Each structure stands twice: as structure tokens, then as C-alpha cells.
């Protein structure tokens, strides 16, 4: 009996498959993670402190920033809105890019990944989707918290509901593109355990080049760095988001369309990412690498 036939024979009955069943498993994967998260109440309280203090740091740095320079670089003069929109959006990057690999390291080192594998029959698709959804939920709560603190500190974000609808769609697009990188990386992580560090490093690179706390136009003096920044999807996502909530620029604006076009070009990565994940999972199952770390 070949390895493929052996694995096939252990698979669950096909009857449990279907969209409804898939969604139930996605929700289950999301729900158990939420339950774990809310059971650490002290953690929750300290995270709120983190959000408030990190916002306050940029609030006070805002007193030092020259509003004229911000205007010259093409932004509105409100640095607190500028920095907090960047900080809020950057919260999605780690959860999209690196959290899945991080989660898998926990499951593997905790010895529970093989247990997950034994009850799995859709190549972890539902588990992964649930985990991506959880990452999105967690980041969204921090994202909203950061923006709310910003509002309270006087950041001049738009109050137009339609503009916010556009902003939400942009956020979903950014998360989808970056989650694709995360799913792909999680697959590679199963066989290459050093990858998690590189993913965290990638998060730092993305945040630096994305211009989270400084205007991207400052990189014009360093053309190589500027062009590297343009190759990163987050740079375009952040520009879209900032222009939307700070300047109320609609998506039909030519500059906005350019940034949107770049982000959309990365969308096929989502399909590719699940294929890559499946490939590495199959390799790991055959070689018995699921629980090694």
C-alpha cells in the first residue's frame, strides 16, 4: 500500500463535507480561540493599557512635529491622526503575516498539532480559515480601540459614514492580501521551523517601508528605499486608508486607483497560498514531520 493510499484510507467519511459543515468548522476554530483569549482577563486589561499608552506616545510626539512640513509632504497637518491611522492598520500586519506560523509553533510545541491533524479532513482549510478570522477579530478590536483613543485625543478622522465604508473595504482588502502571505508561510513553517522568525522580521520590514509613523515622501531622498517601499502591498494599503479617513479622498481619485490596482494585483496570492499550504502539509504528513520542532 502506498503512502497516499494509506492516508486516504484513514480519512473521514465524505458525507460530512459540504459548505454548511465547512462554515461550522470555521466558526468552531474561531470560537475556541476567542474562548482562550477571553479566559486571560488580565491579558485583556493589559492590552487596553498598551493601546492607550502607545496612542499617547504618538500624541506627545505630535507636539514636536511641524504641521507645515506635513502639509508640504502632501498630508493634512494632524500628526496624531497620521500616526494613529498607521499604528491602527499595522496591527493587522502581524496577525495576517506571522500569526498563523506562530500559532502552529504553539500547537506543535504544545503537542496538539497532531491531534488537530487526526480530526482534520479538509487539509486544515476550515481550521486555517477560522484562525484567520480570529486574527482579523483580534486585530480589529485593537484597530478600533486605537482609533477610538485617537478620536478622544482629538485626531481629526473623517465622520462621513460612506468614507468609513470605503475604509472598511480597504482594510478587508489589505487583510486578504497579507493573510495570503501568512497562509503560505504557515505551510512552509511545517517543514522549515526557522521561518517564524523571518516572518516577524518581514512584519518589521513591512511596517518600516509602509511609513507607519513617518510620511512616505521622506523616502524620496533615498530612491532605492522608496522603490522598495512601492513593491510592498502594505505601503499602498496604508496610503489608501490614510487618504480615505484623513482627507476623505474617494476611491475614484486617480492616485487612489493606482494604489488600489497594486493591491488587487496581489489577490491571486490567496488561491496560491492554500495550494502551497496543502503541498507542505502533504509533504509533512508523508515524512512524519507534523509534530517535530
Amino acid at each position, binding site marked *: 500500500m502506498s503512502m497516499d493510499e494509506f492516508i486516504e484510507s484513514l480519512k473521514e467519511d465524505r458525507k460530512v463535507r459540504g459548505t454548511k459543515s465547512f462554515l461550522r468548522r470555521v466558526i468552531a476554530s474561531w470560537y475556541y480561540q476567542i474562548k482562550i483569549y477571553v479566559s486571560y482577563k488580565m491579558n485583556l486589561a493589559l492590552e487596553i493599557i498598551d493601546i492607550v499608552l502607545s496612542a499617547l506616545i504618538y500624541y506627545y*510626539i505630535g507636539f514636536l512635529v511641524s504641521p507645515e512640513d506635513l502639509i508640504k509632504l502632501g498630508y493634512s497637518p494632524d500628526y496624531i491622526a497620521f500616526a494613529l491611522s498607521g499604528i491602527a492598520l499595522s496591527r493587522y500586519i502581524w496577525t495576517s503575516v506571522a500569526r498563523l506560523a506562530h500559532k502552529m509553533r504553539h500547537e506543535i510545541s504544545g503537542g496538539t498539532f497532531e491531534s488537530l491533524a487526526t480530526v482534520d479532513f479538509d487539509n486544515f482549510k476550515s481550521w486555517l480559515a477560522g484562525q484567520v478570522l480570529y486574527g482579523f477579530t483580534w486585530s480589529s478590536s485593537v484597530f478600533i480601540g486605537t482609533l477610538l483613543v485617537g478620536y478622544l485625543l482629538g485626531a481629526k478622522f473623517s465622520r462621513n459614514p460612506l468614507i468609513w465604508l470605503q475604509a472598511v473595504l480597504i482594510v478587508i482588502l489589505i487583510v486578504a492580501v497579507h493573510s495570503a502571505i501568512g497562509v503560505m508561510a504557515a505551510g512552509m513553517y511545517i517543514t522549515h521551523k526557522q521561518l517564524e522568525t*523571518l516572518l516577524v*522580521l518581514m512584519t*518589521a520590514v513591512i511596517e518600516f517601508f509602509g511609513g507607519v*509613523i*513617518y510620511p512616505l515622501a521622506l523616502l524620496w531622498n533615498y530612491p532605492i528605499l522608496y522603490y522598495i517601499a512601492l513593491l510592498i502591498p502594505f505601503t499602498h494599503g496604508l496610503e489608501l486608508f490614510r487618504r480615505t479617513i484623513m482627507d476623505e479622498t474617494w476611491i475614484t481619485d486617480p492616485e487612489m486607483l493606482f494604489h488600489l490596482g497594486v493591491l488587487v494585483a496581489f489577490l491571486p496570492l490567496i488561491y496560491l497560498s492554500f495550494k502551497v499550504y496543502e503541498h507542505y502539509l502533504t509533504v509533512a504528513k508523508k515524512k512524519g514531520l507534523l509534530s517535530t520542532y
Partner: protein
Amino acid sequence: MSVDVVIELFRDKKVSGNVSTIRKIFAAMIRRLKIRLNYKTWMIFDFATTIFMVFTYFLLSFIILPEDISKAGYGSSYFSFALIGIAISHYITASLRSLSLTIRLEQFYGTLESVLSTPTDFIILFLGDLMYFFFYSSIFLLIILPLGILLGAGLIINAGTLLTLLVLIVLLMISNLPIGVVSAAMVLKFKQGNPIGWALTWINQFFAGTFFPVTLLPDFLRVFSLALPLTYSLDAIRYSLIWGVGLLNERVLFDVAIMLIYSIVGYPIAVKIFRKIYDDARKTGKLGIY
């Protein structure tokens, strides 16, 4: 038979006299260093993120007005101001979080009981860990300061300021260590390591003015600032490196005095708190639970 009697029976006073304390501290330091060297990609990550941070604040400094930095007494360059905050941030993390991080990891991997049940006192193991973190953070300092100077930070580096810097860093670690020891005790008690460490780091970074002068804070918040030893450590290091003054300068001397008071008063209290929680955890068998 009471728990105390059982513990006393297990104790063996004779076996611990052969190895000197300094050798034990050194061994604990080497142990931590060897573990770290096994994770080379994490080291690369550590260095890379710090370097990115230097570049981020370098770029940010182009749009910062110098007035408030000057008013606080730190010259006219925001980049120099922020660079010092970044350069010594690893020492801050070392003194505030290293012990709690160590305990949390040992708890998580199930090795805490094995480590703490050896005849070696936990203070010796802590000192070894601390020496490792001092060594590791110093490598960051040696990379970041020259990089900052290369990017145009106006720092005065000579034999006098370097010697002052060394003394001030040792004082920074010693004066902030009591908070780190209490944080480690909280990890033993509440079994939640990272959040306490993060909160401590953020609280200290905010109130001590790592990225902005504390003179910007309103009076009711400055009270918290003045209560933290890190505020004085950062002030002394910045003042010394920006103006090229030594330990005998009035402002630096005042900061040194405050740091010494924190060390002398805080350390015995912190060790007492830790020992109480540690002994309770051993007696109730909860040392390795997380």
C-alpha cells in the same frame, strides 16, 4: 508532618560549598548565552528591528521642530534624543523584563522546577541571566551609537563620556531591577508573563520619555514620571552624551543620587516579595504550573 518539615528534610547543606559564587553566576550567564546563540535567526531579527527603528526615527526627525527638545535641555536634535532612547532600550527591557521572561519560558517548557530546585540560590541564577542581558544589550549599543553618529546624531563620544555611560548603564540596570524582580514574582503568582512585561515596558517608555521629553506631560502625569527610576537614567545618559559632561556635572550627579536611592531601597523590598511568592509556590507545589 508539615510542608516546612518535609522541605527541611530534603535540604542538604553540605553539597553547595565547592563552587564559587562568581563561577556559578558566570555559568548561568554562559547557559543563557549558549541558548541564545542556538537561535541565530532570532538574533538577526533583534538586530534588524532595532536598526529599522533607528532609521524610522531618523526619518521622523526631519519633520520635528527642535524647540521643545531644547527647552528640556537636550540640544536641538530630535534624532540624537530618540537615538539614545533606542540604544538603551535593550538595557531597559533587560532590567524590567528579563527575569519574568526567563521564568515564563522555564514554566512553559517545564524546566522551572528543575532549575530552581538545584542547591544554587535563585538570586545567583538571576544575576547570571542579568549579566547575559547586559552583554547582549551592550552589543546593540555598540552597533546603534556608531550607526546613529554616521546618520548625523550629534553625540559627544570620548573616554570621559564613555566611562560615564558605562557607570550610568550599570546604575540604570540596578535601579530598575527591583521592578523587574517584582514583575518576575507576579509571573510566578499569576502565571501570565508577557502581558505584565509589555505593560511595564510601555508604562516606562511613556512616562520616562523614551521618545519625547517628559516636560511635555501635564503636571498630573509628570508625577508618575518623577516616580520612575528610568526617567533619571535616561536624563543622565542623554545629558552626558549630548553635552559631553561627566558624573561630576550637577544634573547628572542628581540623577545618579536618585538612582542609588532606588537601588538601595528597592532591591531588598523586591527580593523579599519575590522570596515570599517563590516560597509559597514551592510549598503549594505550583512552581511549574502555568
